[in-house]
């Protein structure tokens, strides 16, 4: 790894920590994100003193993926050996960790890294091939919101059924009915069948059910991915409460902000291997490093034809900043080095908000002195500086980068790689995606 890489990573780490500290110390006064709690080291140390409630040792898990979709008896007879019919997919290898009581434990990793499989093994949905898994107390898995909700049944029946599914007795589940309906604000619809619910009501019911289960340990897989902003806020509020109440939570997520602001520790999985376990900041950093690294190639190549060196933000005066202030335009910088010849490279970027909605897009080609498109030869480095003149409303944003070898989307070498993430600080929430400064004339006519 070159010095450039290290510098970039250091920077990314600082950027994240700053964002966090700002949020934690109230520098970010915006109610837009809500106050974010940080996980100071002292607190982490205290949590690690607590007894473990989940202990995993040398966990292995493989899946046998059928080579053919059809599973007829004829096919099975013609191919009696398992190896001929299936290929082995090693999903988890040698995973060992402990989660302590009261800990908020994050599991991060890219798609297919084995996060969800690990959660399902903890939840007793899959069986491990080797290794030992031990848990203490009642564990409530939330692999997907609203699983087991039956559209043909009423909310009342669903709450009881859902509760029993999750390990309560029928009486306990019935006792929780009121609390669930209260939380979901669905008291008036208790005897309405779920198929007549709106999707929003359904999500509220499912979430209320999950929250009111009050298990000793919650296993959560990407719940924040569904629902709108107010739902996400409600999720975060529940996380805060559970943290304060000293409940144990194991959280699988792609949302690095959540990891940093809630988790005491985080584990990074990659290709089924445990790459890191420890401070969430470090885990997030390594997660970004993976996204930047060799594995982001399009088409399954080991190394993409271009290597991202660094990215940063700066004001129009050239001062480097971690997070642009609200209402001020800023510049986005990116450096990339070609590994192979790119005949006529096109760099495209998308600025997306927290809901992954594109706010704007911009693209750039390389030109020689005569204004003709030029190529990028192996070893050459391109530096791009892009001014973003729009005033973004306060919130969290990411920049996705796509690089193609030639115009028209041919020879894509990188596709939608998340190259930067930042917060726009601001004091008041605003509607829409961009702030437009407009003069308003108003007068009162007599």
């Amino acid at each position, binding site marked *: 790894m070159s010095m450039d890489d290290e510098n970039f990573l250091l920077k990314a780490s600082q950027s994240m920590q700053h964002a966090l500290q700002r949020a934690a110390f109230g520098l970010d006064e915006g109610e837009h994100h809500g106050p974010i709690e940080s996980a100071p080291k002292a607190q982490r140390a205290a949590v690690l003193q607590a*007894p473990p*409630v989940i202990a995993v040792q040398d966990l292995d898990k493989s899946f046998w993926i059928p080579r053919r979709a059809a*599973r*007829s008896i004829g096919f099975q007879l013609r191919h009696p050996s398992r190896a001929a019919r299936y290929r082995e997919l090693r999903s988890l290898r040698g995973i060992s960790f402990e989660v302590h009581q009261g800990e908020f434990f994050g599991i991060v990793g890219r798609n297919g890294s084995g996060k969800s499989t690990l959660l399902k093994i903890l939840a007793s949905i*899959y069986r491990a091939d080797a290794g030992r898994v031990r848990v203490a107390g009642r564990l409530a*898995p939330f692999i997907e919101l609203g699983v087991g909700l039956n559209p043909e*049944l009423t909310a009342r029946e669903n709450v009881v059924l859902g509760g029993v599914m999750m*390990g309560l007795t029928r009486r306990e589940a019935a006792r929780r009915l009121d609390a669930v309906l209260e939380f979901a604000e669905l008291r008036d619809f208790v005897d309405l069948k779920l198929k007549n619910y709106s999707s929003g009501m359904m999500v509220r019911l499912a979430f209320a059910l999950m929250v009111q289960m009050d298990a000793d340990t919650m296993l959560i897989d990407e719940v924040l991915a569904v629902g709108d902003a107010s739902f996400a806020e409600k999720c975060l509020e529940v996380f805060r409460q559970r943290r304060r109440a000293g409940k144990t939570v194991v959280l699988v997520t792609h949302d690095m902000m959540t990891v940093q602001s809630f988790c005491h520790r985080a584990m990074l999985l990659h290709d089924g291997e445990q790459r890191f376990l420890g401070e969430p900041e470090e885990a997030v950093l390594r997660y970004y490093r993976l996204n930047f690294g060799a594995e982001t190639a399009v088409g399954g190549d080991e190394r993409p034809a271009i290597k991202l060196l660094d990215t940063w933000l700066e004001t129009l005066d050239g001062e480097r900043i971690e997070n642009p202030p609200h209402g001020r335009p800023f510049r986005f910088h990116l450096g990339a080095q070609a590994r192979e010849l790119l005949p006529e490279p096109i760099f495209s970027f998308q600025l997306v908000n927290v809901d992954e909605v594109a706010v704007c897009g911009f693209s750039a080609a390389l030109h020689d002195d005569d204004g003709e498109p030029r190529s990028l030869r192996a070893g050459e480095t391109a530096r791009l500086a892009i001014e973003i003149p729009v005033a973004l409303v306060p919130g969290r944003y990411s920049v996705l980068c796509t690089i193609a070898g030639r115009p028209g989307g041919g020879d894509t070498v990188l596709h939608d790689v998340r190259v930067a993430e930042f917060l726009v600080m601001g004091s008041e929430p605003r509607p829409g995606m961009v702030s437009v400064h407009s003069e308003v004339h108003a007068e009162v006519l007599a």
Partner: protein
Amino acid sequence: MNGVELQDVHGPSALSGGWRRMWELCLLISVTDFKRNYFGTALGYLWSLMRPLLLFVVLLEVFTHVLRIGSGTIRHYPVLLLFNIVFFGFFQEATVTAVGSVVGYEGIVRKTQFPRLAIPVSVVLTALYNLLLNLVVVIVFLFVYGVTPTWTWILLPVLLLLMAVFALGASMFLSSLYPRFRDIGIIWTVFVTALFYATPVLFTLDLARSHSRALARLIALNPLTPVFELARRWIIDPTAPLPGSAATGGLGPFLVSVALFVAICALGVWTFRREAPRIAEQL
């Protein structure tokens, strides 16, 4: 919560979470399924009574007037026919529904942790509720046709238990293999129809013997045959031969059918236990 012991997690199984939880789940699922079957139909639960009745009328017409099988030779033939159809209907409903049941519950199997056995058990329970309702009709007809009540009527729960156990054994076998061998679904619908004719439903074993000894011998091997023969003797006609007696082909075939009964149930338990831990991965 301090001092909570760490306990080993072995992953999903047929019975994870203990009997109590398993039982509550089965009751809950089967009752809601049962309600759902009749919800939205104009006649509701009445259908559960009407369905066997209508089928009975058709078969009675065919077998007493067109084919003339048992009307003269078998005592209380119409009510025996009704009883048998209701009984076999239970087995058919339970097993045919059970085949695809684990796959049908895919959503919860893959995403929640619960005893996998709850699925086939609740399917059998739902069918059992239907059977109980149907038996109400049967009992009415027992009186209508002037069958004299005997003390053996109190043995009806034994017959129900035998049927339920066998249906559950078959259901466990079918539902656990179906995710891997989808052909089973089609094979079973054909097989169960064949089984209908290989079971003394429309006829009795001694009647079959008077027509073809070889055929009767085959029918006597059917694990369901002794149950139906017992039912006939206990409920409808106390003079009917006991299973295993000379009139029904002797002790040999009877013992084989009992052995098959036990073997199929054991096979069901064995395959289900074997498949349950990994069933979520195969869906």
